[in-house]
Each structure stands twice: as structure tokens, then as C-alpha cells.
């Protein structure tokens, strides 16, 4: 089983967020709680349903990740881009996603 984290988009501003160990939704994937066994994944799923129902987040999903050199890295490109933002420079004051992190 791949390791997993819980992600969604925050209700008020839609920003991508991940669930951390304290049960808060964080903007930083690297602070996310990683579930490494089936019971932990089930718990993430339940928290996801609960916080969706509580109107804290939407588009809630449990996604596959791997820990590489101590860094959490989603397996799907889509989720890596969600974590890092657009992969090109798109606006003043905002950096492009780290190409090494995005690369397959």
C-alpha cells in the first residue's frame, strides 16, 4: 500500500490544503500527516467526510504519496502541481513550482 495523505480545498478561498497531525488543515503539504497503514487511511477518510460535512473543506481526497529524502511527494503529477502551484512563472511575486519536485 502506498502512503497516503488527506487533501482538499479550503471553503473560504479554495486554496489547496492538507490535514496535519494536529487535525488542522495546512497549506504546506510537507506538514501533512502521512497514513502508512489501512486503519490510518480509514481514519483520514473519516476525517475527510467529517470536515466536508462541517463545511471546512471541499473536493476532499485521500491521495498516494511517497517519502523521498524526507520529503512527502505525491505520486500523481496533478497532486504535485496542486502542492507546489503552477509550474511556470505566472505572476509577479509568485515563484514557479520547483522543477525537481514536479519531475516524474
Amino acid at each position, binding site marked *: 500500500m502506498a502512503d497516503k495523505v488527506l487533501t482538499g*480545498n479550503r*471553503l*473560504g*478561498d*479554495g*486554496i*489547496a490544503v492538507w490535514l496535519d497531525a494536529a487535525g488542522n488543515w495546512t497549506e504546506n503539504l510537507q506538514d501533512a500527516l502521512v497514513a502508512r497503514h489501512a486503519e490510518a487511511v480509514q481514519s483520514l477518510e473519516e476525517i475527510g467526510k467529517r470536515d*466536508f*460535512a*462541517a*463545511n471546512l473543506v*471541499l*473536493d476532499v481526497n485521500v491521495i498516494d504519496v511517497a517519502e523521498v529524502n524526507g520529503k512527502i511527494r505525491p*505520486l*500523481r*503529477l*496533478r497532486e504535485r*502541481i*496542486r502542492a507546489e*502551484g*503552477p*509550474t*511556470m512563472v*505566472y*505572476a*509577479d*511575486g*509568485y515563484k514557479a513550482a520547483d522543477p525537481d519536485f514536479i519531475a*516524474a
Partner: protein
Amino acid sequence: MYRYDEFDHAFVNARVAQFRDQVERRLSGELAEDAFRPLRLMNGVYLQLHAYMLRVAIPYGTLNSKQMRMLAHIARKYDRGYGHFTTRQNIQYNWPKLSDTPDILAELATVEMHALQTSGNCIRNVTADHFAGAAQDEVADPRPYAEILRQWSSVHPEFSFLPRKFKIAVTGAERDRAAIQVHDIGLHLKKNEAGELGFAVYVGGGQGRTPMIAKKIKDFLPEEDLLSYITAIMRVYNLHGRRDNKYKARIKILVHETGTEELTRQVEAEFAELKNTELKLPEADVKAIAAYFAPPELPARAEGWASLAEWKKRDEEFARWVNNNVKPHKHPDYGMVTISLKPIGGIPGDATDAQMEAVADIAAEYAQDEIRISHEQNIVLPHVALADLEPVYRALVAAGLATANSNLITDIIACPGLDYCALANARSIPVAQEISSRFGAPERQEEIGELKIKISGCINACGHHHVGHIGLLGVEKKGAELYQITLGGSGDENTSIGEIIGRGFEPEKVTDAVETIVDTYLGLRLSKEETFLDAYRRVGPQPFKDALYGATAEAAE
């Protein structure tokens, strides 16, 4: 341009107030997402990968400088300082907060703009030729009819819950710059032998996962019957269009499955019932709407001819820009200016708040206060005196908006792709950027000539890849991006759907593949006058297949 009357103002303001209440109830937890989602979509608010996205309608792509300034203001105040102009002549903001959207819509309403019907299974923003009212080859301005359709379709109770979304495009010239044959309904405004205005009516075109070219079901529909005939089409679609399968719900599938002859019969039967009802367009109403689109008074500016020749001689870059980005106007002393939103290596369709302000300034000072957004994701100033081209150019240079590449290989259409879009399977923008950089040298672009590259990051085809001379479709294969190439598509009066040329290319190889295609074309064209599309239509796919995959490899497949 059209100005809101009291009814329009009251209607749009009421919708803003209603949406404000809905957002408040959503944020307080009173409304769950399942209930709220259709409400936000009716107001143009989507959820994408990183944030909400707001799509604002620019009816038939026409706006004035005050409205453009408001778009800039919204980018600055509520977003990250930029907006993205789309292939449907709209603008999208990528980072608005849900909690700010009622304020954004309220600000838009002050300049007669809104986000209604930019999503959902309704009749969407009606699009039109971006050179409307200015083009030499135009029979009549299509925008009054687009406006009539907009008024008729806005919250139309019968057509607010169609089987699927519905897109109408109108052109007023033989040369189709609105891609009407890949719309649900395409209208070609023309005159009959008696000199009366009417429409050729095309139905059932579209791109997406099942690209189809529209069928002409009426060669000449009198102007007065526009709404009754369109209503007849909508009724047939609303009744028989499939609701069991989202992927088969567009009218193109109905036309295809029913057959053009039978569908036409059904439409005509409906039309017979509707023809002389209250839907008949009174001449006075058409005239009243048309008056809003009366061409601006353009004084003679014959001095521009000599100045222009002199400026061109003096400045090669300026001459290049005029040659590529300025087209002849109805009035010989004027030109239609395309402001490219395709800087070399840049993001197709994006403009910063400062650039939008600059365009507003230029339009107010030099261009009769008229601005258009083209479906090719550029901005157009339809009425600029030749005598003003030099100062306009200088102002565009200062704003980083003077890229001289209209209709050339770097004038690429690209959807937002996987960098933003929740539906995408692959990125579009970085591919566009790499191709643009590869072919960015002006001499090389001009040597290649007219070539339209269009890129979509998924099969929904927002990047119009099916009608690209070279189309790129990004797919996800075994967890990685792969780009399928189609050749020979075109979205003009001779519409064709591009043919898949062979197996796809990895992101790092796709620009090389495009270069191979371009080099093959350069090697086989009969002369510089034979465009890529003409050459492809003459020789077919084989030389390109051979060049891309090798003659042996292809034979073995």
C-alpha cells in the same frame, strides 16, 4: 456598444444580491456544497486545482476602456495581478476568494458586466467575429444579433436546464473568424439576392471528445425569424437531447444520431408553429439594438498613408508589427490592430493588470474606446487610424504588448491545462512556451508563414486542438504526460478536424516533433505562398508520418 437599460441594471444587481446571500449562507455552513455548487456555477464560480476560478462574460468579446479598467482593478484587488483571456472571448481569474466573489460581481455590475451563464447547462456567452463592425469583407455587423440572442437567452426559463451546455457563434463575413462550424449553432449573417439580411444556420458542430463539423440546415433564414428558428432548434434539442450520458448530451450527438434530414424536419415542424408568434423580431427592435453598434464616426486621416510608409522605412520592428498585426479596415485611412497576448515564451492569453490598463488607455486615446477579445486569445483594437499606428505601437512596446506574431506559429492557443485546471490530464502552457521559444525568431516565423498551433490539456478541447493546423492534445499515460499530435485541422469557413498523425510524444520530445513537422512542410511546399494548411491538404499526412516516425516504422505499425 450595447448599454444597459434600467431593466438590465435591476436584473444584474438583483442577481448579485441573490448570490451574496447564497455565498453568506454557504460560508456560515447553512448551505452544503452539493446545494451550493450549481448556484456558484450559475454565477461563473468554479473550483480548480489551487483555488476558485471566476469566469466573467465579455459578450461577443466587445468591451470599452472603462470595462477593461475594471477587469484590471479586479485582477489587482482580488486576484494575483493578472487575468486569462479565453477561447470563448471571456476572462478568467484564477485566485479569487469565494468570500470576495459577491463584491467582485457587484463591482462588475457597475460597468455593466457579469458572470451569468458562463457555466452550467444553459446558453453560454454568444461569440462573434472579433473584427465585427470594422472588417472590409463584412456584409453586416453580427453583434446586434449576438446581443438579441444574449437578451433572449439570459435566464430563459425553458433553456436554463438543457441536456448540456450550448454555444452559439455569429459571423457577418464570408471569411469565418468566429469558428461557427464548431459551435452548437453557427450563424452566418448574409444577404440574399434581394439584398435582405438573413442567416445561414449551422447546427451540431463542436469539439471535445467527439469533434463534429456542424451541418447547414438552412441556407437563408430571414432576419425576422431568428428567434423563432433558434427556439425551434432549442426545443428539439431540449426534448430529444440525451440526458442519460453526459458525453453524449451535446446537440452534435443528437444531430449525428438523428440524421441531418430528420432533425431538419423536426426543427421545421417546430418552426412552423413558432414562425409568426411573439418571437418574430420586430424591425423597430432590431434597429434599436443595431443603433447601439453603429460604427463610430471615423474622420478622414489620409495623412496616415505617408507617415506610415515613412515610419516603416525607419523602423524595421515597427514595420514587422504592422505587417503581421494590422489588417485593412473598411475605412481606408484606418486599420484593425491585433494586440498579441502571445509574447515569445510567455503564457497565451494572460495579461497583467498594468497591461489591461495600458490597453484601456490606448483604446480611449486612439481607438474610439473600443476593445475586442478574440477567440484566439488576443486583444483587438478594431478602429485605429493609420496616422496613429506609431504612437499606438510605442505605447504597446512600453507595456510589453507589441509582439509581432499575429497568425504566425507562436500565436498559439492554449488552455490553462494541468497548471490550473481540475479536469486536465496534462500541461498546456509550458508546452506552448517551449514551442514559442523554439520558433521565436521573427525571421523564422515569417519564413514559416501562417500556422495555427492549438493545445489542449484534456479531451474537452478548450484549447481547440481539433481545429489547429497543428493540434496537440495532452493525455495521461502510465502516470506521465503524453502529447498526441493532429494535423490539418481548421476552424474557418473551410472547417476540418485534424487527423491524428501517430503515437504521442513525451513532453521533452514534443517541441522537436513540431519542428520536424514544420521542417517537412518547408521542404515540400510549392512556394512561400502555399501555407502549411494548403500544403497538408495537398500532400496528406504521409510525408509528415515518414518524417516523424520513419517510413519503415510506420509501415510496420
